[in-house]
Structure formats: C-alpha cells, structure tokens
C-alpha cells in the first residue's frame, strides 16, 4: 500500500507522516505527548473525552488531535506551545475530575493511572467544585473477573468500543445519557467475553478492574518482566508482574506483529499454575512409595532401567524449542529410538511437513491484510483467541471470511459458515478447489482465487482427523493460489515439531527416512543409529499396552487427560514397566510414575516458544525455579551424561547455536507420502470434540475466577432434527454411547451445528471426553434420552481415574 506523505509542523518541529495520520500519532512520532483518554491506537477515533485539544494555525477553534488528520503544511501547536490548548486541557481535566472520586489510595489503578498522571502533569491542582459528587453503587460485578466502578468512569467508551470493534461481543454498552451516562450490561447478563480483561487493561482510570488483582498489590510492589503466554500457540506477548516472586498479574504487551495489544482472559488470568500448591520441586523415585531423591540418584536409576531397553517419549506443548530439540537429540542419539511424539492428533501429511519446515509463510500480518480467509476445522476464538481477533480485524478491513467446520464459531457475524459432517470436509475442500459452484464452498474457492497471494487458509489441527482433509486442503491451496498453514492449539506444538519431536521428522522438518536430509542432521549430531521412522503417539501407547516398550518418558504431558483414547492411555500406563514423568506436578499420573523429574515453569526458564506462524519468541527466566527444579534441557543433558553419553552442549547458547543451524527456513521439502487414511466414518451420528478455551487443562488449575466467569459445564450439542429423531429435548439429558464408553450430559439443541454431528467439549467439568474416543477427535455415537433413573454418568469407571463429581 503506497501512501502519500504529508509534512507538517508540530510545536515547531517538522514531521513527515503518511496522509491520513491523526495529529496525535504524528505528535507521538516526535515524542510530543498530548494527553488523551478516549484515544486508543487500536480503536476508531471517537473524540469523546476532548482532552487532546491542539491549536491549528489559521483555525479559529481548537481541534481534537485524536480525530483530526494531518494536512500538508499544517502548523500544530500543542499544550507545550499554545496557551489556548493548555487552558482547554486544564479546563477539561477539571471537568473530568468534578465527579471523579478521591479514592486513589484504594484504587487498583492508583500509581499507574492515566487520569492520575495527567491530573498531576496538566491538571488544575485545586478544585473549584463545591457540590456533592455523583454516587453509584460500587463495585458492580460485571462478571467473576471484571468489576465496574461507575463513579471512577470518565466515559471514554474505550471498553464499549473494544467490545464493538475488536472482540465483536457487545456485552457492555453505554446506557442513559448526560451526567447519568454509564457503562452497563443487560440485567442478568454476565460479561462472558473471553477478551473481557482487555477492557480492564485499556481503561484509562480504575473504573474497570480485574477481580484476581483486586487489592493484591500496588504498582510499586511489583517487579515487572516481559514474557510470552504459555497457554496457546498465539504467542501473546505478556508483561508479568510479580510481588515477592509470586506472579500476581499478567498484562498484554503491545506487539503489533503478534497480539496487537490484546490477550485473552485465559492468558491474562490463568497465571497461578507455577505457584500451585501441587507443584513438586524435588525429584522423586519409587522404591516403596514415591520418595524424594537427588537428581543424581534418579538419573542413575533411569540409566539402569533404560540400559539396552526399548524406550519411548511422549511430550506436550509446554517445552521450549530448545528443550524439544534436546529431547529429540536425546531420544535419537542416546536411546537410539524414534518412538517420540508431541502430537495428539493424526498425521498431517505434507501439510505438516511444510509446517515443520517453516515454509508456510502465513503470519498475523498476512491474515490481517488478507482479502479472503478460509478456516477449516478451527474454532479460532476457543483455540487461538488472538488469531480470532486478527481475523475479525481482517474482516473489518473487508476480507471475505469462510469457516468450514461442524459447528458455528464466534466469527459468525463476519464469516460465512459452511457446516458439515466430519466426513464431508474433504469433499467441501475439493469443491472449494474447483471454485465453480455457487454453493458457499464454491464461493469461498472463488474468493480465494480472486485474492490470489492475499488468500489465506488456516487449517485447524482438528481437521487432520477428518478423512483426507489435510491433503485436500493442501490441494485446495495450490489450486486457488492461497497461502496455507496449520494452526495447532498448544503453546509450542509448532516448536516441538520443528525441533523434531516427531517419529519421522528430524529438526527443521527433515524426514529421517530421506538420506540427504538425515545427512544434514548427522553432520551435527554424528551418526544416527536408528533411521527407521518410529511410532507416533498412538502407536507408542499401543506398543506400551502390548508391553513392547520398557520405559516410557512422559514429558509435560498426561495421556490420561490429553490423549483422545483414555482407555488406551490407561492400558499403556498399566502395562509399560517403567514410567518417568517430567513435569511441574504429578496430577493423575501419581499412581503410575516410577520416577519424577521436576521441571522449571515458563517464568523460570530461558528459551523460545514458536507461534503457530513459526515465529520464535524469547522467554526469559524471571525468577529462580523453586526447590531444585531444572529447565528441561538441562535434565535431558544431564540424563545423557548419566547414561554415559553426551548431547554435546553444556550451555543454552551452545544448544541454541546447534538448533539455529538446523531449523533455519529451508528452500523446499522432499516428497512426502499422503497422510494415512483415518478410520472410515459411520453413517450414523458423528461425535466430534475439541477443547474450549477455559477447560480443565492443567495450566488453568487454580484460576477459580476465570473458571467462574467463562467455564461451562460439559454439555452435548445436537441439531434440532437429530434431537427430534433421537427423542432429545433442549434442557434434558442425553446418554451418549460410543465404542469406547458412555456418558450422560445435558442437551443443547441448536441449528448452528451440522446435521448428523454431535459436539461435546473435550475437557469441561463433568466429562473427560477422551473416555468416549478411540484415537481420533471424532467418533460414531448413539444418543438416547436419559431418564431419571439412569445409571451414573461417565465411561468405564477405571477409565476415569481422576474424575471428580461436579
């Protein structure tokens, strides 16, 4: 987008900016601060607070710099050089402070409040107001997370504009008028937006405050450091505030390339897990019971157990790039096994290979500037919330958005949804690739074709479980010329894949079976003893269940909760002789672990997380790890030494140097066989599941208020016609039966789900949906109404070792 440049003068300094820039932004470029409240760079100008008045030479009236665009040769004088502008600002502050309570000492914003700062810098100093101030009931609980104090509100409308323009869920709105105008929510309604915390952060006063931070600390108590959110692959940049080493608050940090200035409520409020009381900070080893031991002892035992034995590794999405790399190298060079995997979905075929090799080239910026966006099997709001906001931003800029999914997502007001059964995804993608039909899929294809290089396809990891979907989407992308990428939910799935925590891929997406690619890695690692591709996560668990594996390492993962086949995971844990758990805590693995290695949490370690785009972002250690917990790469390196081997690096820098060379973006990828066909789908009802944003996941444990505000109990969602056919009624309860198990859940009937499909959330209180699954996130199901005397809910009792009654 080439733009004309405009040169103007502000306070006697010349500045050249693109035409259309607001004066307030141009002044920022010169380092001139014009006070403001309603102005926010991510929101449309509104001109409500009238604080940012400037004088423009030749104009009789003052202008609000947040709504006035620059013009050539304009001469602007701010409060620094214009008495008139200064007087207007002082007067306006006086107006704003008339009704503002003097409760700064107990206000959570006190000390970091724009109104306080500006009153100090520009304010009149003394009040001429003698009358009583406006009084409201306070605080008003908008949700379990957000409190509203209407007395402090300056009615800048940042929060309501955020809900309108950014998140698109207009829970709060201005209400009444004149001096009685206030922010309000519909009676009986809760501020259930997963982005509600952003309104707290952009509030220029203490009107909106977050309950988890209520009266917890004052700004001067806090030590603040930059970090990256560990909850999903969006990679939101965070500021982490700690009081005496304990995380008390997380705020979104501006990064226009990643999260703009936003974070979702999970990233903002689920910060308690590193300080969880369940955390274990010393190694444990099972002699009679699990007993504390030194790292040396535990390593010695593990070395004994693994000597000449068959070893497999499962990891999750919490490891940094460096740790994943160390794991990949450890498994392959020390234990000579390729049985390692971080995934829980099926193989992604060539799409996954492209993603692993960093060749997809889709970034947030590409999404924002796209002219057409197609999401396949991705509920962006629930899985990668900040990507959802970017897609909305693109839609506001005119992008055509299509969603191919089984269930309507929160993009429904800006996107065309193409609801389909799981087995219809591939067919729709073929229709999209052809782009000729007048049906929505055809229109989506035409839109992508028209957009060309500005078309984007986002393939959710869930789509990989649908027969042929991964390959069909790749074909659709090449037919339409769209850019395509995979979007996986967990924080560092992408990093783990690129670092080679995969049975068939070495670091940098190099297939181990391809000699040239393997040779590139062997230049660094030396000979890789075993180059037959190993087992994937499912096959590893099956092998464990068949007692074909002797030692199973579970690194930051709990297959009982995460793997879409709880019964298989349980059989595997029971049958594999030795289990080594490396994590923050044991949780449901406590009965099975033979050894425990305490790992450092994300605030305690150095390394990188890779976003779904492939952007590596640095994590910094913000505090020492508690006890003797260690960063996982150090554990791997020490374990290698204990096993009489050496990973070849002693410091993180050495590791990073090795890793950097291997994961640098590559020119191309070798041919790759099509992904194995997932099991065929039955003709009857098809159940599908994916995790919702706030679920029973390990990292949200302890975030009680977040859960109170946003967590839903487990439910089953069915189409009205399916409900009628099976005799279910909204508000009633249904018994679900699958090959793997059964459950009883409350029924929601909605037209916004494809006919013939049934949705249950993956891990909400009331049901661990993996007890219903047999290895993929979709399965055949039968439904029947539950009667009052129905048996207990849930699957086979032994498949749910940790189920707690709701």
């Amino acid at each position, binding site marked *: 987008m080439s733009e004309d440049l405009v040169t103007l003068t502000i306070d006697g300094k010349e500045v050249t900016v693109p035409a259309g820039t607001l004066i307030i932004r141009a002044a920022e470029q010169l380092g001139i601060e014009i006070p403001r409240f309603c102005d926010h760079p991510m929101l449309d100008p509104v001109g409500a607070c009238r604080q940012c008045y400037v004088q423009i030479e030749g104009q009789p009236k003052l202008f609000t710099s947040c709504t006035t665009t620059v013009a050539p040769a304009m001469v602007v004088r701010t409060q620094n050089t214009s008495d008139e502008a200064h007087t207007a600002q002082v007067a306006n502050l006086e107006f704003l402070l008339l009704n503002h309570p003097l*409760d700064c*000492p*107990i206000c959570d914003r*006190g*000390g970091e409040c724009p109104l306080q700062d500006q009153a100090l810098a520009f304010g009149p100093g003394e009040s001429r107001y003698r009358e009583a101030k406006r009084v409201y009931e*306070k*605080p008003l609980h908008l949700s379990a997370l957000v409190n509203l104090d209407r007395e402090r509100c300056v009615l800048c409308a940042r929060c309501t504009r955020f809900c309108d323009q950014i998140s698109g869920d207009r829970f709060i709105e201005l209400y009444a008028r004149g001096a009685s105008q206030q922010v309000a929510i519909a009676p009986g309604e809760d501020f259930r937006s997963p982005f509600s915390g952003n309104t707290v952060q952009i509030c220029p006063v203490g009107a909106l405050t977050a309950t988890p931070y*209520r*009266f*917890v600390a*004052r700004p*001067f*108590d806090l030590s603040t450091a930059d970090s990256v959110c560990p909850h999903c692959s969006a990679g939101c940049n965070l500021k982490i505030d700690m009081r005496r080493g304990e995380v008390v608050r997380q705020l979104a940090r501006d990064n226009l390339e990643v999260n703009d200035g936003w974070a979702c409520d999970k990233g903002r409020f689920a910060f308690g897990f590193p300080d969880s009381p369940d955390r274990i900070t010393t190694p444990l080893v099972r002699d009679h019971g699990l007993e504390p031991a030194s790292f040396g002892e535990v390593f010695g035992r593990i070395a004994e157990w693994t000597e000449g034995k068959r070893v497999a590794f499962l990891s999750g999405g919490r490891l940094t790039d460096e740790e994943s790399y160390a794991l990949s190298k450890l498994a392959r060079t020390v234990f000579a096994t390729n049985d390692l995997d971080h995934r829980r979905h099926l193989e992604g075929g060539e799409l996954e290979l492209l993603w692993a090799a960093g060749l997809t080239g889709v970034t947030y910026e590409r999404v924002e500037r796209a002219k057409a966006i197609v999401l396949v099997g991705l509920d962006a709001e629930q899985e990668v919330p900040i990507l959802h906001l970017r897609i909305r931003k693109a839609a506001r800029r005119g992008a055509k958005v299509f969603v191919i999914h089984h269930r309507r997502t929160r993009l429904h007001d800006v996107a065309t949804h193409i609801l389909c059964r799981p087995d219809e995804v591939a067919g729709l993608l073929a229709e999209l690739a052809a782009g000729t039909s007048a049906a929505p899929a055809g229109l989506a294809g035409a839109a992508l074709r028209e957009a060309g290089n500005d078309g984007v396809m986002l393939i959710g990891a869930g789509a990989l479980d649908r027969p042929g979907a991964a390959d069909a989407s790749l074909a659709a992308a090449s037919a339409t010329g769209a850019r395509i990428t995979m979007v996986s939910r967990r924080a560092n799935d992408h990093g783990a894949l690129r670092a080679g925590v995969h049975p068939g891929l070495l670091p940098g997406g190099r297939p181990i079976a391809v000699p040239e690619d393997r040779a590139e890695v062997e230049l660094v690692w030396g000979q890789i003893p075993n180059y037959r591709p190993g087992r994937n996560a499912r096959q590893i668990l099956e092998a464990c269940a068949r007692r074909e594996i002797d030692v199973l390492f579970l690194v930051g993962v709990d297959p009982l909760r995460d793997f879409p086949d709880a019964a298989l995971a349980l059989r595997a844990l029971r049958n594999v002789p030795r289990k080594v758990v490396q994590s923050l805590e044991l949780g449901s693995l406590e009965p099975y672990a033979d050894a425990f290695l305490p790992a450092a949490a994300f605030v305690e370690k150095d390394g990188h997380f890779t976003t779904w785009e492939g952007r590596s972002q640095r994590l910094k250690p913000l505090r020492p790890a508690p006890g003797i917990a260690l960063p996982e790469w150090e554990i791997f390196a020490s374990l290698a030494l204990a096993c009489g081997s050496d990973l070849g690096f002693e410091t993180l820098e050495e590791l990073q140097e090795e890793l950097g060379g291997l994961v640098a973006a590559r020119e191309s990828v070798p041919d790759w066989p099509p992904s194995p066909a997932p099991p065929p789908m039955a003709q009857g009802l098809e159940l599908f599941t994916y995790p919702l944003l706030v679920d029973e996941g390990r990292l949200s444990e302890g975030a009680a208020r977040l859960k109170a505000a946003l967590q839903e109990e487990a439910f089953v969602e069915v189409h009205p016609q399916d409900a009628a056919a099976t005799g279910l009624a909204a508000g009633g309860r249904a018994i679900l039966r699958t090959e793997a198990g059964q459950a009883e859940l409350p029924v929601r009937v909605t037209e916004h789900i494809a006919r013939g499909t049934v949705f249950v959330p993956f891990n909400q209180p009331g049901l661990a949906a993996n007890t219903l699954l047999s290895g993929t996130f979709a399965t055949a199901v039968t439904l029947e109404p539950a009667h009052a005397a129905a048996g207990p809910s849930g699957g086979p009792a032994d498949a749910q070792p940790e189920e707690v009654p709701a």
Partner: protein
Amino acid sequence: MSREPAPQPDVLQQVGAIAKGMATVFKQTFRKDNTEQWPKQIVAPPERSHIGRHLLNKHENGLEKCIGCELCAFACPADAIWVEGADNDPENPTSPGERYAKDYQINYLRCIMCGLCVEACPTRALTLTSYFELSFTSREEAIWTKEQLLEPPPPLGTDPVDREG
C-alpha cells in the same frame, strides 16, 4: 599541584587555644546534669512528641482508619513496612470503604523513625507515638503485627522486657 607552606602559629597563640578549650571543659563539668537515668527514672517526653513506635488508629465507631493502601510502605525509605490489602466484608467491615489492611507489619529493625509513613497516610491511620521503649531479643519480636500496632502504647516504664534489664 603546588601548595603554600602552612604558616607556623606562634607558641602564645597555641597556649591560648588550649586554655580556651579547657575553660569550656571546666564550665561543663560543673553544670547541672541533664542525663535521664532511664530506666530507673522515667521522664515523660514532651507532649505531642513523636519519637516512638507507630500506632494504627481507629475511628470512634471502632472501624480501623487504615484502608490498606500501602502508601506508607511506598513512602518508607527503609522498606520496613509490609501491607496486604483485601476486600472489606460489606456486612462486617473492618474499615470504611472497600479496602482494608489484611496484614500490616512494621519491622523495627529497619524502621528509622523518620515519619515519612505518617506523612504519606491519607487517612491519618498511622501516627507515631512517644513510646520509645523498644527492645527485642529476636528478629521475629522486632516485626510488629497489625494487632500489636492497633494497641495503644502502655505508659512508659511498664514494658516488662525493659524492666528485666
């Protein structure tokens, strides 16, 4: 750098100076003694002198004046004060308004009695008293809790710890 040689004072001048100094000594030797024989003799400090430990005041209706705002802790140059705020129970409030001090501690091993905390207090909840008889036998004892700070000081000379010495 060059320096001028110091001029040599003559002997008479030196003797004079010594005599002057000794005169001062003699004058003081025979003046009335100002030393107070604490703890044998308790002399009340002047009215309104603020030289001793802190007191957390209460309103007449029994509510604590302290609202837990931590401004005292912010003002403290010695980092001697620890405050933790919490939400008042609207039914049974500890202090007026929304916030109260759930925890309030002053570490008298750190406190330098400068009174900046008192100046910072927006509700006049924190004042210094004239009770200076502070002595401790352990670190824990030197950290005064909220309950102790809410207690008005006893009359001087009644602290059992001091009497033992």
